[in-house]
């Protein structure tokens, strides 16, 4: 049963307990900050996995939702002048992102998959430019500084637990989605779109549902990001923001959800570490190139990412190797 380890409730619970006691064992402020970032980005990564890993849609505009969430929360909190209306800001951000996702989906999902990637890329650029040029609303290149958030969200330890709770809730929610009948249809679409269609499913509608859910979750992550940073700038709409979702999911393992969490950790910490090496050699300033190379290697040779590959390996080495491998294949089948 070792191959099931990453879906094993007990292992996940143990990791959760470990993370929960971390703030009380003298963990540095810095490490906690990093972990908060990991938690939030992990949610963002999982939202991308719902599209890429479970529906087989390659979007290059995922930053749109993250950015929409971040800006909505940032702008609303600033305009409402009452930080305690945070949840209202989130609610509006989520609804707004759902509308954006729906529009984007309706506009671009009707065309072939490759077009979709390209069109989402173009729309992301559009959002970036709007954020940059509509400065009366977005603050332009200066962004939105000094976002006021409730006290609970300023204090490091409480924010740590809020972020951790956010991750857990979102993980359980998405797990539920992918295991539901809806999720199974999405995976059928990923496996063979035409087949799903011939079975009578309205593929477009299912894809729309997928992108709307994904967009809402990504927007929440964006909102949390704004709360954490207390600052929003145009980078939330940048291509790099989309690329980071892609890297997290691919490196961790597509179609696993847990892969995105692991990917978020790997990327955040490796990024920090590589940047700190910049004083050793300037090439480390270009840390993205390392991720680019790793990413290519993974796409070419380990299309299931870290988690999928480990799962397979364990499955193969276990006694009932063959049958379990087939099972794993069913469950964690990658889009690649």
């Amino acid at each position, binding site marked *: 049963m070792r191959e099931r380890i990453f879906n094993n409730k007990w292992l996940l619970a143990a990791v959760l307990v470990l993370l929960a006691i971390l703030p009380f064992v003298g963990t540095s402020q810095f490490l906690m900050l990093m972990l908060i970032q990991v938690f939030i980005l992990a949610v963002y990564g999982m939202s991308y996995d719902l599209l890429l890993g479970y529906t087989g849609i390659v979007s290059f505009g995922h930053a749109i939702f993250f950015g929409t969430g971040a800006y909505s929360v940032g702008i609303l909190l600033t305009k409402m002048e009452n930080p305690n209306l945070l949840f209202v800001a989130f609610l509006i951000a989520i609804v707004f992102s759902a509308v954006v996702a729906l529009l984007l989906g309706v506009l671009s999902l009707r065309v072939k998959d490759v077009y979709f990637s390209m069109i989402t890329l173009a729309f992301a650029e*559009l959002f970036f430019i709007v954020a940059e040029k509509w400065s009366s609303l977005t603050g332009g290149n200066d962004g939105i500084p000094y976002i006021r958030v409730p006290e609970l969200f300023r204090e490091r330890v409480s924010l740590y637990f809020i972020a951790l709770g956010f991750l857990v809730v979102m993980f359980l929610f998405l797990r539920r989605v992918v295991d539901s009948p809806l999720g199974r249809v999405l995976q059928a679409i990923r496996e063979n779109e035409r087949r799903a269609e011939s079975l009578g499913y309205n593929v477009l509608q299912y894809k729309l549902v997928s992108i709307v859910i994904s967009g809402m979750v990504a927007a929440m992550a964006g909102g949390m990001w704004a709360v954490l940073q207390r600052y929003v700038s145009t980078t939330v709409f940048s291509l790099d923001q989309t690329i980071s979702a892609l890297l997290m999911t691919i490196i961790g393992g597509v179609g696993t959800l847990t892969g995105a969490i692991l990917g978020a950790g790997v990327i955040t910490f490796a990024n920090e570490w590589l940047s700190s090496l910049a004083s050793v050699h300037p090439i480390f300033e270009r840390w993205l*190139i390392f991720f680019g190379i790793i990413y290519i290697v993974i796409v070419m040779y380990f299309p299931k990412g870290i988690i999928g590959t480990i799962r397979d390996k364990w499955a193969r080495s276990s006694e009932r190797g063959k049958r379990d491998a087939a099972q794993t294949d069913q469950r964690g089948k990658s889009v690649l």
Partner: protein
Amino acid sequence: MSLTVNLLLNGVALGMLIFLIAVGLTLIFGLMGVLNFAHGAIFAWGAYVGWAVYGATGSFILAILAGTATGFVLGFVMERFFIRPFYGNHVAQILLTLGLMIVLTEGIKIFFGPNILGFDKPELLQGVVTILQDPFPVYRIFTIGVGALVLIGVHYLLSRTKYGIIIRAGVQDPEMVQALGIDVRKVFALVFAFGAGLASFGAVIAGPSFGSLHPEIGMQNQLAAFIVIVIGGIGNFVGAAIGAVLVGITQTLMAYYLPEAALAVNVALMALVLILKPEGLFGLRR
């Protein structure tokens, strides 16, 4: 009136540059179903290598040759080692070409630095001529001329040669071309390298026209090319040409009257085409 003429000519010049990028994209996509997200990065490498060779030798012709060769080789290597194992697997191809884009773009920053570099026009092509009592830069005319030549050349290649017939047939149904006994893969590799070469050729021409280079130059122009091929109908050469000129003119007009909205208008144009005619204005229904 003369302002309009001037803007139109500028628009055509820009359209020609976008066209050079779009041709490769549209042929590669139409033929092998690969949307090459690294195409813009190849463009950027062409521009930077051209810039470096121009700076080192002072010869613009050498710069063009070196830049074009860079793109050709990059395209060839990319097809052979990265794309070829994944024909038929669209998702892997999209993801792979995006990864190549990241690596190539970061590579530019490592080799040439992340900052803006100036790219001067060769002496011979500096200055202005008067058209309809209006000064018009010689370099723009050069751009339009070169673009028109390439357009005619590619058109001849596609419409009159056996290679052209194979490519046009392959765009519609590569499987059937194979069933007729033609090794489509070999043609794929050539078209890939050729398309990449055209983009980087266009890049060296574009460099002095933009006046400067920066590492993101590839992505920006690639977006314009994407919009062009959606508008023109993917895989459609004539569509790409018309679409490029259309986008070039819109972009120039917008840049003059309402610079904030230049890209927005093109994306909106693309959205409109997608809603009304998803196969593109000149595309085939499939």
